[in-house]
């Protein structure tokens, strides 16, 4: 009997189909991997299975023959379908025992006190089943990432010895290469005991190394399910991308830039970024691509000083210290983050104050802000960038996401930076606003400004950039050039295929 069967699973978010009639079968004792590009629907599938999302009508699922109500987290839990998410969800201040007992019932002694001895024994039991002999009294915070992952897996195991379905969502994204093998040991340990493991990962080498079966999703539909013996790296990449590689025409090479670079990144490292170097020349738009966990998501933060880093950042000849956004701004860098709410907007201030934040000098005389002149500048930006708003003094929160982002674009552009860093600038904004932001980026990139565009959106990178650096596991593995080999497909391919491309 199969461990898990899903039939005709579709999911539509207000008219947009994210999953299209997906069916799949996971056998007992196997490692079944789920692969696909960003936006292929694998995360949505996992979320439906975990009960975060309701599927569209018509979907059915069974666990070892018993019907599973999709979209219900309690039903999934009851049928021993368990999840380990990428962020693990552990509490660092608590011990392994306490983390494992979260969501479980503590054994009690007479009078209601916790029976710690029994609790520790229970924790030790699940840790053993996850193939670990760690002291369960240790605090989770003092463990390395590999051991933390193991604790999270142990916590996911059911109390009883019944076989479970363990879903691991990107478990290796944050793992250094040497720890991946340990994790695989844990996974094999689980399958030997009769559990089924569903693995979501971007790393094809790992997928090929541990899986028994691989299901490929593309644009929300299941493309194929193959045994691991039937594919190799290249054929799997083809299944995921769905297209043959587009060969570059070899002509019209991007202009070779000379003169001094406006931004030099040298040996950038820290966290999951291992080594990134690049030079940006005036007038150039350089993209950074990479899947989740490749280190791509940290690059902009390190370059702008939001995150600590090692290695040097030189803006127009001035080396700026790590972790000091003010120094980077002073040297002529400006930035726009896709995480507006967290790093951009001040919800307690109006549109005008948000737009001019950071440089009020030009509207200040004798210590007083001249609101008239400030308002005039803001109106000018509202017209230039087509910000849809009822006025310059409305709360910033009354604007749509795309228009809020345009306000932040204006905040950066008004500084006339020599280097503009865009960190996923169109994340979470609608298609129309995305087009407009793209147009603004192209129009305002003058001969004296260079742009570093970090993005999860391959189309965006292919459209706007002169060069794109593709990151895999913390290093740049591929550089694509406009007019040579820069296409969205090639970016996707390089991200997925990794160093082997």
């Amino acid at each position: 009997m199969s461990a898990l069967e899903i039939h005709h699973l579709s999911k539509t978010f207000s008219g947009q189909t994210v999953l299209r009639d997906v069916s799949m079968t996971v056998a007992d004792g196997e490692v079944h991997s789920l692969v696909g590009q960003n936006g292929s629907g694998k995360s949505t599938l996992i979320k439906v299975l975990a009960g975060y999302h309701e599927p569209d009508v018509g979907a059915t699922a069974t666990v070892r023959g018993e019907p599973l109500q999709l979209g219900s987290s309690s039903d999934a839990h009851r049928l021993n379908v368990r999840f380990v998410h990428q962020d693990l969800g552990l509490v660092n201040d608590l011990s392994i025992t306490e983390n494992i007992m979260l969501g479980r019932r503590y054994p009690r002694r007479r009078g209601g006190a916790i029976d710690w001895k029994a609790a520790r024994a229970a924790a030790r039991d699940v840790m053993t089943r996850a193939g670990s002999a760690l002291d369960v009294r240790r605090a989770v915070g003092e463990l390395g990432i590999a051991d933390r992952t193991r604790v999270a897996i142990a916590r996911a195991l059911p109390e009883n010895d019944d076989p479970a379905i363990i879903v691991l969502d990107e478990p290796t994204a944050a793992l250094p290469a040497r720890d991946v093998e340990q994790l695989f040991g844990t996974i094999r340990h689980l399958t030997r005991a009769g559990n089924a493991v569903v693995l979501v990962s971007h790393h094809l080498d790992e997928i090929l190394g541990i899986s028994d079966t691989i299901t490929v999703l593309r644009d929300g539909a299941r493309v194929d399910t193959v045994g691991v013996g039937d594919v190799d790296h290249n054929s799997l990449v083809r299944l995921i991308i769905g297209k043959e590689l587009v060969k570059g025409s070899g002509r019209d090479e991007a202009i070779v830039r000379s003169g001094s670079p406006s931004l030099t990144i040298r040996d950038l490292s820290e966290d999951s970024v291992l080594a990134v170097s690049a030079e940006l020349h005036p007038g150039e738009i350089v993209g950074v691509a990479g899947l989740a966990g490749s280190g791509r998501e940290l690059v902009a933060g390190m370059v702008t000083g939001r995150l600590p880093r090692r290695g040097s950042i030189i803006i127009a000849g001035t080396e700026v210290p790590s972790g000091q956004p003010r120094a980077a701004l002073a040297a002529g860098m400006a930035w726009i983050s896709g995480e507006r709410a967290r790093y951009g907007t001040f919800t307690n201030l109006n549109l005008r104050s948000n737009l001019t934040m950071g440089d009020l000098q030009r509207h200040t005389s004798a210590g007083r802000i001249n609101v008239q002149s400030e308002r005039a500048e803001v109106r000018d930006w509202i017209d230039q960038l087509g910000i849809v708003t009822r006025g310059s003094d409305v709360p910033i929160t009354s604007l749509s996401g795309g228009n809020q982002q345009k306000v932040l674009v204006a905040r950066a552009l008004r500084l006339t930076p020599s280097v503009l860093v865009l960190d996923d600038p169109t994340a979470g904004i609608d298609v129309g606003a995305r087009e407009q932001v793209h147009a603004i980026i192209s129009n305002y990139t003058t001969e004296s400004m260079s742009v570093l565009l970090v993005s999860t959106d391959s189309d965006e990178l292919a459209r706007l950039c002169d060069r794109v650096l593709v990151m895999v596991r913390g290093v740049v593995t591929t550089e694509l050039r406009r007019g040579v080999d820069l296409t969205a497909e090639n970016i996707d391919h390089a991200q997925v295929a990794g160093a082997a491309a």
Partner: protein
Amino acid sequence: MTTTTNTTAPPTAEEAPRTPLSMRLGRFSALFLFLGFIILFGIITGDTFFTRTTWKLTFSEGVVTAMIALAFLVPLVAGVYDLSVGAMMGLSLVILNWFGVNQRGVPVALVAVMAIAICAAVGFLSGVIVVKFRVNSLIATLGMSQVLIAFQLKIANNRQITGAFAKSWARLGTRDVVGVPIVVLYLLALAIVLWFILEHTPVGRYLFAVGGNPDAARLAGLDVERLTYGSLMASATIAGLAGVIFSMKVGTYSSSTGPGLLFPALAAVFFGASQFTRRPNVWGTLVAYFALAFGVKGLQLAFGPGTFWIQPLFQGVALLIAVALASREVGETRRSRRLQREASLAAEAAAPVSIPPPGPTTSPTSTESPGGSASVDVQQ
């Protein structure tokens, strides 16, 4: 006493661009409360309530506490809590008294300047603890206030100090100018300066930014550390000034004077933050403070001298109700803003020409739908 904000008609899409009436009125609830007290106690105890003496007394008695409230307000704007403002005022007062008793030769004005400078230096020290040692401001200033109290007890030998000041010094705090107690004018002057700084200068704007989103403030190039230092030094300076004013007006030092003012001051600031601009602000703080002060005064007049317990009861209840209403209103505001945004998006998509706000000339085909953002979230 807070009925003005209780009825809320859920805004529909048609009327959404405007804030509901009840909420627009809620911004002035402290003023209504003030008026309500005046009418209520005017009716109950008109003969004593409506006298020049009562009004002058209530205003001038409130000046020092109101200053403590303004001291607390400045760092609060930047999201920093300074719970040492009461003890800081006591520090300034004990320094003045000690010199008044033990060093009569030194001019009081000079001592006053020195006392304020010492307070500012202590404020800087709090800044070091908050910024350099990354101690939560609530804890840092709570600890600092205890240290300051210890220092005062030592200096004053755990005794009350009286008679330290000459009549000429006392006249600076007890005179009337064109019928208005002079201390009220001091308060007004301070309030105008702080209002100007907070609402009309870059520093004020930046303080609000740090209070609203410190991460974004740092990334926008603001010197968050310096603003934190500055706000704590400002609050200490104002608290020191409050101590000087108290020395002119009352003179007597007792160890309970400063710390006792902390609660009513905080109540006024938090109540005031729901007023006018709907964020911590100078005039909201003052109106809220004096509305509560007149309420207490009216109750005391109505129920006689045995009602010393009314003040804390009244202030505690008022604070709880005010802050509860304010949090409700924040929720309402978010909700109405969301409705506004949805309505304007719907308007953009449906008819880009006719409905305000005017839609863009290139009408976007898809609005920001939950599906759109969800699919983005899901991609990782």
